[in-house]
């Protein structure tokens, strides 16, 4: 939805590509997005678990009919889009923060320490966008759904299985509230014991620093940062997190940031709207008790 929002900057007509098997429902949903012309639906058994080789091939086949190809900056598109760009012999701009006229973009580099303004001279603009930086479009549209025939499977790769984290909590990517714990939680049991009650009360997703993941306190799917997930919730609460560059990268676009840390000089406080210097093992349970929302 945000990617469609970002595409509107060009004032052209917008189509949506959707690939998979048995995706009628998804296509209908996509057709409601405001300002979209057509939904190009590639529905085929071999696209059940879409592989980079096959999806990039589809984009390659239809890509020259477009002047701009945009996707949100997710693992899915980060896997596919560079391959499609190479097939089309154009460069790609990753994780765009701002789109200006004349194909001028702002994106972050050096782990978020530097913003680069650049201009692309390619005939097709291929980019992934930092979703939280763009407005989502509404759902009052009525796009045409076009069934397209997918090219044959390339059979370079075989899909085996997947492991999704099943959680009662909202997915990290679009949670309104995220609370993240660091190495200081000390063990997997404590990580859970201290953070869960507060997460339950706030209906929050739980995130972790790399140090907490490496120590085995939390699964790697919930790592927030440069090498993990990038989140931008309304409220981000960093608990016992030092505020390393690579972590900040993953949460600095959050609307309100709270940090709880017992070191008054911790870097994280520079990125927090509200800082509480306290022992997390006392402050977090107290907070869980005092929060009124149930």
């Amino acid at each position, binding site marked *: 939805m945000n990617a469609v929002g970002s595409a509107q900057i060009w004032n052209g007509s917008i189509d949506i590509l959707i690939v998979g098997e048995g995706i009628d429902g998804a296509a209908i949903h996509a057709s409601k997005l405001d300002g979209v012309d057509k939904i190009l639906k590639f529905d085929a058994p071999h696209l059940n678990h879409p592989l980079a080789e096959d999806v990039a091939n589809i984009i390659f086949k239809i890509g020259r009919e477009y002047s701009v190809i945009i996707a949100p900056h997710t693992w899915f598109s980060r896997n596919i889009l*560079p391959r499609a760009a190479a097939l089309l012999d154009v460069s790609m701009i990753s994780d765009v923060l701002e789109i200006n006229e004349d194909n001028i973009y702002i994106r972050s580099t050096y*782990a978020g320490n530097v913003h680069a303004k650049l201009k692309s001279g390619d005939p097709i603009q291929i980019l992934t966008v930092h979703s939280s930086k763009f407005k989502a479009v509404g759902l009052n549209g009525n796009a045409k759904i076009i069934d397209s025939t997918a090219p044959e499977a390339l059979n370079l790769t*075989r899909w085996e299985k*997947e*492991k999704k984290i099943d959680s009662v909590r909202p997915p990290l990517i679009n949670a309104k509230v995220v609370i993240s714990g660091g190495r200081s939680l000390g063990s997997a049991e404590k990580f859970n014991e201290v953070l869960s009650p507060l997460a339950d009360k706030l209906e929050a997703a739980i995130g972790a620093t790399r140090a907490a993941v490496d120590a085995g306190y939390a699964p790697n799917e919930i790592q927030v940062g440069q090498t993990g997930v990038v989140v931008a919730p309304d409220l981000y609460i960093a608990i016992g997190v030092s505020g390393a560059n690579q972590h900040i990268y993953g949460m600095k676009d959050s609307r309100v940031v709270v940090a709880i840390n017992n070191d008054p000089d911790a870097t994280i406080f520079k990125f927090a709207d509200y800082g509480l210097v306290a022992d997390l093992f006392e402050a977090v349970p107290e907070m869980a008790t005092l929060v009124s929302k149930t």
Partner: protein
Amino acid sequence: MKILVAIKRVQDYNIKVRPKSDGSDVDLEGVKMGVNPFDENAIEEAIRLKEEGFASEIVGVSIGSSLSQDVLRQSLAMGVDRAILVEAEEVLQPLAVAKVLKKVVEKEKPDLILLGKLALDSDAGQTGQMLAGLLNCSQATFASSIEIKDGEVFITREVDGGTESIVTKTPTVLTADLRLNEPRFVKLPNLMMARKKPIETIKVDDLGVDVSSRLNTISVSEPPPRKEGIKVKDVKELLQKLNDIEGLKI
């Protein structure tokens, strides 16, 4: 099996790089440089595959100025067998790097091509996928585990909200995540020994590929600073402040 590993020289991950005062580029004067961390994982994995008897030879390749010799030396000290430096004075963009690597692949004919999933300087994360596209071969990005069975490569990789397992046919391009392994420390004697291993130098112009920049940097700047926050004295005050924020329901 033969393995090619691509290695980039980047700033040390602890260093906060800043723009030059005129905003023309970043200021790397005096900044500590080394092997891109994700590339270190790629090197480590290649060496393990050789130690486990799956690989016969590991070739390291870097594209950059003559300074990039130091990261190649580092890889040789870790256990890479020989290295190639493709000398280029300009910093090449991912598509150009992929085109150069394609040339090297055509010459070396590796079965596995290992790269880091991302470089700490440009943060683009594109080169491996682009290379796989140009080679029309299989790809497995963001790999947290790589195993070889009966000539096929089994990979566990990161997807949105979890992981997936896929099997690729060789030749295949793999990009390494930090979780893939724990890179070994290099011992001093190995560093000395690495001096004797060969580094072949090729001039990028001699490869006959178009490495021109498609993206032109207009300026670089520091990100807009976050509004200065406040310290609260206790949990009660914190909750009060949060409750006062419009649209935030807690």
